[in-house]
């Protein structure tokens, strides 16, 4: 297992290199705007634009720029400076990780707990009213766009612009280190909004898996042993049916840690997604590159974690 993890970590490095290269190439092959131009502001004289282009190294071939970028990154963990804001990229992005992690981890807890609960109840009460209601609700939650859901949640429940003033509204995110209570209350609506579609998806996934699992021979064995039905369902049924759920959750969390753009945007949580969105608007290559690398890092690490976790969840799986 140890060797397996080391080998996988080496692959992570290779993958990140490839990702950075691809981002670079994409930016040059399909440029969205001229960074020197943007940096120079309104009606700049062409001389200034050229000077800026030169001073930022944008007049060099892309591979030279890429080499310089990677050199600084590898040797000094330096992601460069933002073209648009002229601030160091590393701090700009790393500052955004904690808000995103707060949002994603909290939402994941919520969607896993509710998704698993609803999925289990639905599977056990298959075809009954509660199952039909839950699955109908799940379908709605899956098809509701996050941005719309976020706005509706704000218009209904936000303490500033809502109909009923219950939860703090957009832009109220407070770091947990500043005030844990405010941190928690400010994230309640975002957690619910982000978790809704995932909870629905996971409920459906688990329901399907569990219905299949409950017809397995070992469930019949468990019942034949005289176990209580609750134990049969939870310890024997859910224990098996949950494996793909955990796998999916690992990957989803990994993807979201790279930025939950829509939820962050609608609730104005200063996370990686906002940074990424903003950087694309501004054609800010150093930040785009940084957020893409961070996102890719989380995804490959999540993949690794999921694979390792799989071995713990399913004793039949062995890596070498």
């Amino acid at each position, binding site marked *: 297992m140890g060797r397996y993890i080391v080998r996988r970590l080496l692959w992570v490095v290779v993958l990140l290199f490839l990702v950075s290269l691809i981002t670079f190439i994409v930016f040059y092959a399909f440029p969205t*705007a001229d960074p020197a131009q943007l*940096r120079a502001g309104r009606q700049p004289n062409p001389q200034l634009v050229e000077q800026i282009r030169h001073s*930022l190294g944008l007049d060099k071939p892309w591979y030279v720029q890429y080499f310089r970028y990677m050199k600084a990154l590898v040797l000094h963990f330096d992601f460069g*400076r933002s073209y648009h*804001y002229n601030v160091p990229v590393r701090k700009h992005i790393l500052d955004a990780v904690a808000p995103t992690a707060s949002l994603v981890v909290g939402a994941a807890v919520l969607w896993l707990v509710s998704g698993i609960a609803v999925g289990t109840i639905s599977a056990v009460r298959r075809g009954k009213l509660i199952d039909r209601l839950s699955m109908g609700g799940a379908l709605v939650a899956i098809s509701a766009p996050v941005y719309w859901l976020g706005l509706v949640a704000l218009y209904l429940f936000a303490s500033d612009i809502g109909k009923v003033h219950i939860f703090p509204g957009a*832009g109220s995110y407070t770091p947990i280190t500043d005030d844990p209570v405010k941190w928690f209350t400010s994230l309640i609506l975002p957690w619910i909004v982000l978790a809704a579609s995932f909870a629905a998806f996971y409920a459906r996934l688990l329901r399907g898996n569990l219905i299949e699992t409950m017809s397995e021979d070992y469930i019949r064995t468990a019942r034949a042993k005289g176990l209580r039905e609750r134990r049969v369902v939870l310890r024997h049924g859910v224990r098996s049916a949950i494996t793909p759920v955990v796998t999916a959750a690992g990957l989803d969390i990994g993807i979201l840690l790279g930025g939950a753009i829509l939820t962050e945007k609608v609730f104005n949580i*200063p996370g990686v997604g906002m*940074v990424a969105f903003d950087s694309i*608007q*501004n054609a800010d290559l150093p930040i785009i590159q940084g957020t893409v690398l961070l996102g890719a890092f989380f995804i490959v690490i999540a993949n690794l974690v999921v694979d390792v976790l799989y071995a713990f969840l399913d004793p039949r799986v062995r890596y070498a």
Partner: protein
Amino acid sequence: MRRSLWSIIAALAVLALVVAGCGGGGKAKKGGTVTILDTEGGVDSLDPGYWYYQDDYKSLGQPTQRWLYGWKPNETTPTPDLATALPAVSNGGRTITVKIRSGIRYSAPLQTRTVKAADIKYAMERCFLPQVGNGYYHSYYGDIAGADAFTKGKAKQISGIQVPDATTLVIKTTKPIFVLTSGRALGMPCTVPIPKDYAQKYDKGKTSTYGEHAVFTGPYMVQNDGKGNITGYEAGKTLTLVRNPKWDKSTDFRPAYFDRIEFKGGFDATVAARKTLTGPRMLSGDYAAPPVAVLKSGLSSRKSQLVITPSGGNRYIGLNTRIKPLDNVNVRRALSAAIDRTSLRQTRGGPTIGTIATHFFPPGIGGFEEGGGVQGPGFAFASSPTANVPLAQQYMRKAGFASGKYAGPALLTFADDAPPAKETAEAFQSQVGKLGFKLKLREVPHATMLSKYCEVPKAAVAICPNFGWGADFFSPQSMIDPLFNGKNIVPTGNVNTAQVNDPKLNAQIEKAKTITDPAASAKAWAALDKVVTNQSYFLTWIWDNNVGLESKDMNGVPSKFNSGEWDLTFSSFKK
């Protein structure tokens, strides 16, 4: 007699406006924390040398620094700030002498130092450096003696900026420059003092990092650790201004009521606008007008919280005169007659957001009144509030299209991909369709539209429906020179999007720039306004308003100088 009565009434009206501007009938309350909700990143940079946009002026330029000349909210001429008086002009308009107040202090860590003329000289010089990225130095300071040599690296200083003593700044130009002699272009943030010995180490390298270590002279400062490090700024997220203890109120014209000003970035525009209207202690942020839906509901139920100010800017549809059939002036006039300016305005929210334009210059610009005022110069094709199709067809026939309709190939058009600009473009498309025009309409993000297509002559875009332009310091020159002077056609970042290069027009512009008598200057520019309107290089459709939103307890004061954005040093809480 009549005349003087009118001037008394006018004076009273101005007084009323000023009083209103100073706090809803003198009801300004001192103190408190105001929050401003931005939808995008807010300010672009902490570096005064970079500031050129409304947000930079509003959020940093006015509250945190003193310039040589500042701008009172309702005035269209500069007020001495660091300077003690308007510039003294000599040598036939080629030498400008500015005296500077003594005893103006910097914030920590330079709290023991006072502002010297040399600090302003350095500040102006560094605006020429590529690592600072200033956008206007060549337009306004390019004719300062020795500027060329400095730009080319042949001189370490600009010889035309001199400091005979600590409180005197002398600027020598190669020819008389109205924007300098009037003090207007010295009312720009390149004159925010920056001590050379402190800043120089940050000005080295690819991009200057001075902004992260800036010192302040204004009533407020960006929160910092007192050791020269900014702590109150997270790019795109937050900006916190606190009182500057070194600021001396008795030397400043600004009341600076608030104790603390907090900017929060990244809001959804609708959410931000609603929050501002429903919540306490908030002013609207980096959007010139709220989303159409909020504007409509605000107008019906919260009209007193909407502050509508002419922004001094316009919106126009750009036509490329190098592309057939737009090279024909009568085709351009036909298009001008064919568009329905009222329904175009509807796409952005209706009458609140601006006045239907009858010529190119917006109100407030020197030369606007001379050019016909709101009624305009009387060109029928430019002043119809709705489509005038018969007139348009008449011009088409004049242009050689006997049927009165265009029958050539579709015209390449680039527009914004987001509302409301996108809707404006689409409305335009259907309007000119009636004249037989077909558009190859491409919708892309705003920044891409400008920097990759509409401002790149090589891209050969025929029509760009989402242009707007605003003047710097009410200067008619800044409305005309960059947009219509042939010498300003450049390969990228080209704002002369019509690609007009008419020697007669160029000469007329160059001549107007050197007229230093205000009345003669206004007349000369008004004549140019008439020319470009008659030529229909652009289809000007509105003169923009800025629609500010304020919470019920706020008394926001818009700054005319800054396109109608809030002047946070005059805004306050209601008593």
